[in-house]
């Protein structure tokens, strides 16, 4: 019945294939999938090369970083339906934690990482607890403001470099054979990929359990979720805090690679772009979001040879795409969408029940 209006959907087919696969095939698929991404920096394919910028650098930033951030923002926007327009703030908090502690204390990247994540989570809770009581539009405005405030505060505090930001951020210490240097983005990419895989694993686990159910219910109807006994504020704050943690981790890693940061890197554009990744790929669907972020981060780099008009070309491609697939490239399970007139034929017979 649900496939009455059948539309080809890659996600449904892939999911079905996965469901039907025996355990050994799933393991093999996962391993080759993961191995492929670890080997990606060595891939020298003219199709995905980025003339005009270094392919290995592009993999780390923007592609990998956008994917990570989009997965984080998707917990907030896609899973629990909260519109956060200031997501860059948590990225900035992670990056500044790395920059300040890295230049002023002897702590190294691995020691600063949990601190950066914790600070991002703490500010997420601080911002979320009062504002998540607000409904939709207000939340968007408050988060928008928060994103700008963090940047403006950074600009105005001379002790952390003011508008000039912070330079000389230390790179992470060697990790076995991998050396983290400005010249070689590969180890950073591998760390980023590892973060991403961990977070994908965590998000998938949560989505299948009670928090996932609660977020589903909240997104569909917050009031009814409360009637079911769901502490909606708690779950919304958690979604917010987890999203913040992901961006915080990304910020710490980013700062340790780029070595110097300025407040203007953390402007509204970043929040909007990450949100675009989530919407473009298919809000709420993890694989769609990953694909969306990859395309949105990668395409401008791939067409860099077009120089000036590339952003225009990119913009046109986006508009065309959203018209062709308004729910994103790989939308969430179709069953979320229903046609209210679908059952009208059946309605007449409903008196016969029992």
């Amino acid at each position, binding site marked *: 019945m649900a496939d009455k209006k059948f539309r080809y959907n890659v996600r449904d087919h892939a999911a079905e294939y996965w469901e039907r696969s025996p355990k050994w095939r799933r393991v093999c698929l996962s391993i080759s999938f993961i191995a492929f991404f670890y080997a990606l920096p060595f891939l020298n394919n003219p199709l995905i090369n980025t003339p005009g910028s270094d392919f290995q650098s592009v993999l780390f930033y923007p592609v990998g970083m956008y994917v990570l951030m989009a997965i984080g923002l998707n917990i907030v926007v896609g899973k629990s339906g909260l519109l956060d327009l200031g997501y860059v703030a948590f990225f900035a908090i992670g990056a500044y934690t790395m920059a300040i502690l890295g230049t002023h204390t002897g702590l190294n990247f691995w020691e600063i990482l949990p601190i950066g994540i914790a600070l991002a989570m703490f500010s997420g809770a601080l911002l979320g607890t009062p504002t998540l009581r607000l409904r939709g539009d207000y939340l968007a405005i408050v988060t928008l403001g928060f994103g700008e405030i963090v940047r403006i505060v950074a600009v105005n505090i001379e002790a952390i470099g003011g508008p000039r930001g912070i330079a000389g951020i230390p790179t992470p210490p060697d990790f076995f054979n991998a050396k983290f240097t400005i010249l070689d983005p590969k180890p950073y990419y591998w760390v980023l990929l590892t973060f991403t895989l961990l977070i994908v694993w965590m998000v998938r686990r949560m989505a299948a359990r009670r928090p996932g159910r609660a977020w589903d*219910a909240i997104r569909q109807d917050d009031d*009814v979720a*409360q009637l079911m006994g769901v502490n909606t504020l708690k779950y919304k704050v958690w979604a917010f805090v987890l999203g913040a943690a992901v961006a915080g981790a990304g910020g710490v890693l980013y700062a340790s690679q780029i070595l110097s940061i300025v407040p203007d890197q953390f402007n509204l554009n970043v929040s909007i772009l990450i949100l675009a990744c989530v919407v473009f790929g298919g809000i709420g669907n993890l694989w769609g979001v990953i694909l969306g972020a990859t395309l949105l981060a990668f395409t401008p780099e791939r067409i860099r040879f077009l120089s000036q008009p590339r952003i225009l070309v990119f913009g046109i491609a986006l508009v065309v795409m959203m018209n062709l697939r308004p729910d994103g490239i790989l939308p969430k399970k179709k*069953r979320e969408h229903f046609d209210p007139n679908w059952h009208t034929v059946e309605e007449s017979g409903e008196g016969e*029940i*029992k």
Partner: protein
Amino acid sequence: MRLEIKDLHVHYGKIEAIKGISVTVNEGEIVTLIGANGAGKTTMLKTISGLRPVSSGQIIFNGEDISKMPAHKRADLGLSQAPEGRGIFIGMSVLENLEMGKYNRKNRKAEMNEDLEKVFHLFPRLKERISQVGGTLSGGEQQMLAIGRALMARPKVLLLDEPSMGLAPLMIANIFNIITEINKTGTTILLVEQNAQQALQRAHRAYVLEVGHVVKEAKASDLLNDPAVRAAYLGTGAH
């Protein structure tokens, strides 16, 4: 398990929607609130469930004042509501909707199956539709699901907001039969209705609401024969 509302006032901004209402629901009763559109019936139920804040007054449940308690805790105490417009999670299947109803109870398989069996006994149609998505159910089926979902929480008091809204006459009769059956198995019910005829036939006691006030309170059977009530709510005039 008595529910007692004392001198309740509720506001939407500056507008006072509930202007000092007192209602008592005794254990085992069906009590109905009837009244025209905009009388404040839905606001009463939302406030009892904790979705609207109380301006002043008390909501006493099982001897405890719960008027400041968050909504999800009231659900845990045994106040369960099938809201106006049914509030089905349209993206979840029938089974997932029913599971949401017992969100806070330990997920013990046996207990869960027992509750599901009870719901399916009342609403066999839901069992047929078990894996169908909420959004594709008919209006009547959605109402069954809303009531079934509320029952999954093993409520002490069941709050029903216009269960007959938008349904065909036969379906309405069916739903009210089931409401009576639920009450006979020991669940106290507070029923909000615009369909006064059905509500008064099923309830033990009734309150008539008009723009935020209780204008009449009596045994339901007495109100059925009250000329003023017949004229205003039963559309048959006084005779």
